[in-house]
């Protein structure tokens, strides 16, 4: 390794950026070599991954339980839909993504300030109520938010420079859905780099201190409220961004897309992968994206009726969640790490 590379590797940011670069290459390789259907699934995995990444920081690093992150995805998605309703005068996509993030961040700050006063199940109750209340807002303001039918999202055309660059490198044309998948994964990598840096920084240490023992943290001079609100805001910003990607991928922001099940799915993604681990969040998102379809196909192949096969997906997913919590409470990543440590200590 050259001295320069070593210097980069030595700094946290440098490592993360390098990792991000590799990730981007891997993403391009995967997206270019899979079918359009898989591209669509990868877009889903990306937005689930972004939201789960934010949630794992909140729950894993800061110890706050949110049952309502789907609501912030809804906020991001609706912001996107409102900004992209006019094909002609749509702002640049990057601004749309930033706006969705920012709106979720601001609303998250408000909720976070309230939630920071609460403990354990009381936060759970408040965020649960939030998760079911937000879809109702879209119904109430039918005029601007489109009611039950929701708002359709016009995905902007693939910009020429992007299409040209992609063609130059891969000799493939970029379809709209592949473009969305790229946007999703680019957003995911950017947000993961930021989250990883944040969690390695002083802020991350403060979060962990608050999680492990809030009394001790307070005695050590940490402002508990500020630490909690900050963690909340960071995770809701991620959810907002995820919502924006979701809106692009689904091309619609409708209340029925943001029911309680979404919030709960995010939570189980985080737990399945391993609380507090970004890699775990990504794995959880992958499971959530790919598992139902695989399970349903297996069920159909095994001769179940459509109805039974459809129920098989939630059944397997619920059972998996339960088994992971009971047998491997550290999640997939945590268990794998522990196994590796054990192997190392008993050579």
């Amino acid at each position, binding site marked *: 390794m050259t001295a320069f590379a070593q210097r980069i590797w030595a700094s946290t940011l440098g490592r993360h950026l390098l990792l991000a670069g590799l990730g981007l290459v891997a993403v391009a390789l995967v997206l270019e070599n899979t079918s359009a259907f898989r591209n669509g699934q990868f877009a889903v995995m990306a937005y689930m991954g972004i939201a789960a990444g934010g949630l794992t920081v909140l729950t894993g690093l800061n110890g706050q339980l949110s049952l309502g992150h789907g609501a912030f995805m809804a906020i991001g998605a609706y912001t996107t839909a409102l900004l992209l309703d006019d094909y002609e005068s749509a702002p640049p996509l990057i601004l749309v993504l930033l706006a969705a993030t920012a709106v979720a961040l601001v609303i998250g700050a408000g909720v976070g300030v309230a939630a920071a006063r609460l403990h354990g199940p009381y936060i759970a109750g408040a965020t649960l109520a939030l998760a079911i209340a937000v879809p109702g807002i879209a119904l109430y303001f039918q005029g601007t938010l489109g009611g039950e039918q929701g708002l359709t999202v016009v995905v902007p055309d693939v910009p020429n420079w992007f299409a040209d660059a992609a063609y130059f490198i891969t000799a493939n044309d970029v379809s709209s859905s592949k473009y969305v998948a790229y946007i999703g994964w680019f957003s995911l990598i950017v947000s993961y780099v930021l989250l990883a840096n944040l969690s390695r920084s002083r802020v991350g240490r403060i979060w962990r201190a608050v999680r492990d023992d809030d009394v001790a943290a307070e005695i050590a001079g940490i402002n508990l409220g500020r630490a909690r609100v900050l963690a909340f805001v960071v995770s809701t910003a991620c959810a907002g961004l995820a919502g924006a990607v979701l809106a692009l991928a689904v091309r619609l922001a409708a209340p029925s897309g943001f029911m309680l099940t979404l919030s709960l799915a995010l939570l189980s993604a985080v737990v399945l992968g391993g609380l507090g681990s970004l890699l775990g969040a990504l794995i959880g998102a992958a499971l959530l994206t790919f598992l139902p379809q695989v399970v349903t196909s297996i069920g159909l192949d095994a001769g179940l009726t459509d109805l039974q096969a459809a129920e098989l997906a939630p059944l397997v997913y619920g059972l998996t*969640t339960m088994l992971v919590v009971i047998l491997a409470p550290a999640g997939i990543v945590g268990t794998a790490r522990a196994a590796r440590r054990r192997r190392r200590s008993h050579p």
Partner: protein
Amino acid sequence: MQQFLTTALTGLTQGMIYAAFALALVLIWRSTRIVNFAQAPMAMITVYIALVIIDAGYSYWLGFAAALLSGLLLGAVVERVAIRPVEDKPHINAVILTLGLFIVIHALAAVIFGSNYRSFPAPFGLSGFRVGDVNVALTGFSVFTILAVLAVMLLLVLLFRFTNVGLMMRASAFNQEVARLLGVRVTRMLTQGWALAAMVGSLSGLLIAGGNLVHPSYMDSVVVFGFVAAVLGGLDSPIGAVVGGLILGVSLSFVSGYIGSEVIALAALVILMVVLLLRPGGLFSHAPARRV
């Protein structure tokens, strides 16, 4: 005037249903410091058991008893099999576990009983009373609902406040080690707590189902509003659960009737936030909020 009265009375009945569900949550919270999100599907499946029995031609009350009994059993089994391994783990593990259980029971019920609407009979009349010209929107069954919930609340207060079992259940929840050193069989208390709570949950399921339609998701909205009611009242207090349920039921009924049914969840959120910001431990919290 008539509309006001009707809205208030139907809200009252609805609030009692939230209260019944909240009582079950309070019971589990008091005995294991866990919020059981799987309470609703657990109750739902026992209500289906009652329905099978009633459909087979047996009396309503036999089905009623069977549902309560199977609730008792199911609660004990769930605690032994699923909850025991996570009891000493962080709070969030138990929450996730019950959410997983929620999904599993749901799917199982849909496969076993089908996902269509079925009607569930009621043992009492379903027509409202009339006093002169004024229609009182209470049916025989809603009176039964109100009385049943009040009775359960009273029994729980008595249980926790005056009996040794109740005391032991609470001690086990607060400090397992101290309780064991004092001779309390903690594991048995936890199992009992879950069994009792699941039975109260089944009761709430029966009360919602009576004279109404059931399907595997019929209790889903009650999960949310029942939980909000319990939190509103303070998770530790049976009286709080009933008061919380009533506040929620009546106010949501008015919101639904005079503003629109799409905002009732929003209204629940607003009520909850206002109460929690004033009293972070709920309306009836005595002890300071305990860190979990």
